[in-house]
């Protein structure tokens, strides 16, 4: 379809090409390094400007434009990886929930755009607004069809900075992806019509055109789906060749694209659906390292392609041959594109809102209309026009470029201020608490039940049916048996938190050396100082995140500590053997904060270096400390949980504490322990006191635990009495903390069983929990676990 370009680029173009790419990369680095700039101007705009400069340089040197963005290079080498990346990191549930709306915009909206633009321009031409150019009605329609499509690359580039809420984003973005089906068909149909000339068009051709739409769109999607299944199956079987697993993903993705091209189907749809289908399965099937690699590589390729595309778009401007200026044509095109986009969006949304559960409000519609950006796809199509058939090709190319610059630069720059000014709902940052997650589950089932009772087959019913089908058949087929277990998300998060907690204890205990486990009065350390530095380099490994469906690959810096702790972990646990457990350990390492990161901005390509936040490091520490507090308090409160549970709850809560600084109830809690808000320093300030107590009393050795009995629970250490106002709440934390080194010994054996079946562990703690309903936790367990 796009194959009417020459096969080779002239040799000197290659060197110029490479140098341009180098320059582009460096430009990209400069831009990345200067985040202040990118806050105001999207990268894409900067890159285009950069391209202008480069183009100017080349032209100045050569006096002729040696190369521009050729459609072939664009469609075959630059576009596929971007689209694959979007498919792979697409939030599926959101996408399919809104699929109806997306399709309406993509299909009807694009057709409307094309028709309205073409006809209006023709009308104006007839009215003489454009002077003397040779474009007929059909050519106008052709031009309309190539200008109509909203461009996915541009949308990502601009919306990346502007974190609008998920629904809005997915509507615009989904539309930009799916409208490729329509664009391809329209373009080809009108291209064929132009070749046939006006006389050859009859009903038969038109019907062929309409039918071809269905074939192209559905065929492309189906093909993508098939390839997605293939990839999933493949990853199921590649247990022994894990190193090259990532390669398969890319190869098969690209194959999906090429196959669709070959069959004249919609290639973008194909590769998108390939990515959408396979993401769940390959993430579960593949080794963690492979998943990491795939994510990273995808982002790298996509980023690279996007950079090159925009730079080339800039360079392409500096080409004298295409500069044909026709004021009427260009200005009218800009005007009509803008206006008709809004009209289309408002009209379609009005229809859609009658069927949607959560209607799109006016502001969101405005942003959707404004976000109808044209980009490189339009330019690629324009460059592919046949000059012999369309005499004014240069004018069209020039206009397309101007439109692209207008939308990307102007609309891109003003998008963020507009979003802020209109107070569009932004993406939620905080993580759901565990209770909210559970509640979501409840909702799902409840809705299905009500639909069943009220006898209606609705959305939820279908979704439930699909879910059952998928769990039963597709997962069975496409997932490795071990991977099937990891499926349930709620459990996943929870399980990981358990593991992570244990890991931390071991790491901490190990770092202090085994001597710390014995009574050692001189072991007082300036904890803050030591802890900060130790923690800072150990934590990132444990915190290496694997964001689930979106942007993250993390900076996986492995250093020696985790592996050492792993050994200790293993020694202590005796039973922690087998690939499964080690795998869980690695899973843990990479999935910490998984739940939290779920809501991070999915579409930011450059900002996924999420572990460098100082607060995060402290946050984990604070969490565990708090959880120890909780475990004591819970005994007091009559809520009798097993010990490790306490840690997890805090985990869920923590993001809220740090991110939701205005939640008074949380910050109040923090104040007790840390005598300050959620700052790292606040934490450190109160900490040495506690360590002093701990080390001094040498409570570490469980043998000495019986000293502490319930009645002394409220006994306030004298040296703390006058230093802390909220004394009765600090004391518990002392006590809770007292259990710190003891804990590893306690938890690890039980954790072993937990990773297998979770039976005995819970039962143990449950019983104690029940018994010690009104007693503080520390006393009974130590008897059992010594």
């Amino acid at each position: 379809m796009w194959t009417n370009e020459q096969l080779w680029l002239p040799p000197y173009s290659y060197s110029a090409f490479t140098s341009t790419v180098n320059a582009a990369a460096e430009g990209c680095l400069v831009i990345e390094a200067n985040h202040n700039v990118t806050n105001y101007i999207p990268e894409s705009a900067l890159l285009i400007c950069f391209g202008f400069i480069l183009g100017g340089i080349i032209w100045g040197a050569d006096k002729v434009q040696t190369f521009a963005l050729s459609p072939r290079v664009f469609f075959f080498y630059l576009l596929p990886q971007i689209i694959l990346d979007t498919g792979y990191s697409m939030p599926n549930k959101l996408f399919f929930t809104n699929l109806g709306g997306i399709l309406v915009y993509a299909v009807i909206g694009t057709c409307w755009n094309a028709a309205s633009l073409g006809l209006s321009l023709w009308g104006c031409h007839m009215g003489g607004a454009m002077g003397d150019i040779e474009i007929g009605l059909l050519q106008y329609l052709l031009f309309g069809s190539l200008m109509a499509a909203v461009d996915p690359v541009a949308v990502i580039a601009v919306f990346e900075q502007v974190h609008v809420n998920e629904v809005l984003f997915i509507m615009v973005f989904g539309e930009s992806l799916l409208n490729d089906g329509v664009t391809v068909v329209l373009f080809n149909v009108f291209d064929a019509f132009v070749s046939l000339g006006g006389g050859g068009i009859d009903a038969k051709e038109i019907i062929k055109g309409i039918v071809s739409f269905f074939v192209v769109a559905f065929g492309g999607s189906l093909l993508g789906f098939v390839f997605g299944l293939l990839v999933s199956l493949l990853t199921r079987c590649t247990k022994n060749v894990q190193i090259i697993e990532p390669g398969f993903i890319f190869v098969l993705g690209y194959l999906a694209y090429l196959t669709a091209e070959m069959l004249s189907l919609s290639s973008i749809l194909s590769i998108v659906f390939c990515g959408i289908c396979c993401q769940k399965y390959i993430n579960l099937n593949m080794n963690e390292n492979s998943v990491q690699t795939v994510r990273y590589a995808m982002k790298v390729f996509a980023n690279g392609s996007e950079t090159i595309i925009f730079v080339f778009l800039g360079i392409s401007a500096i080409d004298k041959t295409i500069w044909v200026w026709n004021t009427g044509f260009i200005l009218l095109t800009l005007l009509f594109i803008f206006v008709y986009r809004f009209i289309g969006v408002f009209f379609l949304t009005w229809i859609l809102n009658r069927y949607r559960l959560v209607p799109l409000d006016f502001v969101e519609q405005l942003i959707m209309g404004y976000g109808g950006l044209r980009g490189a796809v339009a330019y690629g199509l324009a460059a592919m026009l046949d000059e012999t058939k369309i005499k004014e090709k240069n004018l069209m190319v020039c206009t397309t470029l101007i439109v692209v610059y207008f939308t990307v630069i102007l609309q891109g720059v003003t998008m963020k201020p507009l979003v802020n000014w209109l107070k569009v709902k932004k993406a939620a940052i905080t993580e759901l608490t565990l209770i909210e997650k559970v509640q979501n589950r409840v909702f799902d089932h409840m809705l299905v039940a009500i639909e069943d009772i009220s006898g209606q087959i609705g959305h939820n019913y279908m979704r439930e049916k699909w879910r059952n089908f998928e769990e039963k058949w597709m997962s069975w087929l496409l997932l490795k048996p071990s991977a099937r277990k990891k499926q349930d998300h709620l459990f996943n998060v929870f399980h990981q938190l358990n593991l992570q907690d244990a890991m931390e204890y071991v790491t901490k205990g190990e770092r202090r050396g085994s001597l710390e486990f014995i009574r050692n009065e001189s072991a007082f350390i300036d904890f803050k100082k030591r802890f900060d530095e130790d923690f800072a380099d150990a934590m990132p490994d444990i915190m290496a995140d694997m964001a689930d469906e979106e942007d993250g690959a993390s900076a996986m810096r492995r250093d020696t500590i985790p592996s050492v702790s792993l050994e200790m972990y293993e020694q202590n646990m005796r039973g922690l053997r087998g690939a499964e457990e080690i795998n869980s350990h690695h899973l843990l390492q990479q999935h910490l904060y998984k739940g939290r990161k779920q809501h991070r901005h999915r579409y930011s390509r450059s900002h996924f270096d999420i572990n460098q936040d100082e607060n995060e490091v402290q946050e984990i520490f604070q969490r565990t400390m708090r959880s120890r507090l909780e475990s004591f308090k819970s005994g007091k409160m009559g809520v009798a949980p097993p010990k490790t549970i306490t840690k997890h709850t805090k985990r869920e809560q923590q993001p809220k504490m740090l991110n939701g600084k205005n939640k008074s109830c949380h910050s109040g809690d923090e104040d007790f322990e840390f005598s300050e808000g959620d700052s790292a320093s606040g934490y450190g300030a109160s900490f040495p006191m506690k360590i002093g107590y701990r080390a001094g009393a040498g409570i570490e050795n469980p043998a000495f635990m019986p000293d502490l009995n319930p009645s002394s629970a409220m006994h306030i250490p004298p040296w703390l009495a006058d230093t802390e106002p909220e004394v009765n709440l600090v004391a518990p934390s002392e006590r809770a903390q007292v259990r710190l080194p003891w804990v590893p010994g306690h938890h690890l054996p039980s954790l072993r069983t937990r990773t297998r079946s979770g039976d005995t562990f819970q039962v143990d703690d449950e019983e104690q929990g029940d018994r010690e309903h009104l007693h503080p936790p520390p006393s009974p367990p130590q008897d059992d676990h010594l």
Partner: protein
Amino acid sequence: MGAKQTRSEHDHQDLVEKTGFSVEQIQNLHKRFQQLSGNEETISREHLKSVPALANNPIRMQIIEAFFDKRNQHGNELGSYETIGFEEFLMVMSHFRPPTLRTTTEEKETMRKEKVRFLFNMHDTDGDGKITLAEYRKVVEELLSKSGTIEQEAARAIADAAMLEVASTNVPNMGPDDFYEGITFEHFEQILKDLEMESRMHIRFLHVNTTKVHCGK
């Protein structure tokens, strides 16, 4: 038959005001009600249990109980019915009505509060106004029971974790010796205040007859 018709229409008119459904929707639901009850005036738990599709639903019992729960009738009674009539059936269903474009913000607030109240009632089975740990555990265990990967103890642990999380947020409000009994309604509301319920608790009730199998959009 004619008299009966008009009388039921008259009743339906009352129900329109009470529940906010439209007349067509009420008529459809009435047909469904009669289908479920076997053309009797009231339905009992067994009738609801016999809905075949519900068999796979993990929280089936809670949902069915919700229909018979007096607290969901917008009155102030406690306890539960043995059998319910059409009006009660409709009242429960009205909790799932989506807001139209015409609902005002206050109405939306009220609706949301009703939904939260419905959820609360579902958890708080003994009606004492608090969700205790045991009650919450039960709900979560049921919820996760059908999911193959989570055993009962793990489900219990999750329930405990969630409960503790909630308890800990309540800590600043309590004195040192207070006993945390359970989640009260206000607290529950506060926990869920950020949770987006508009799209999660709606059923599209149709205006056309759907007693035949029909795609509901």
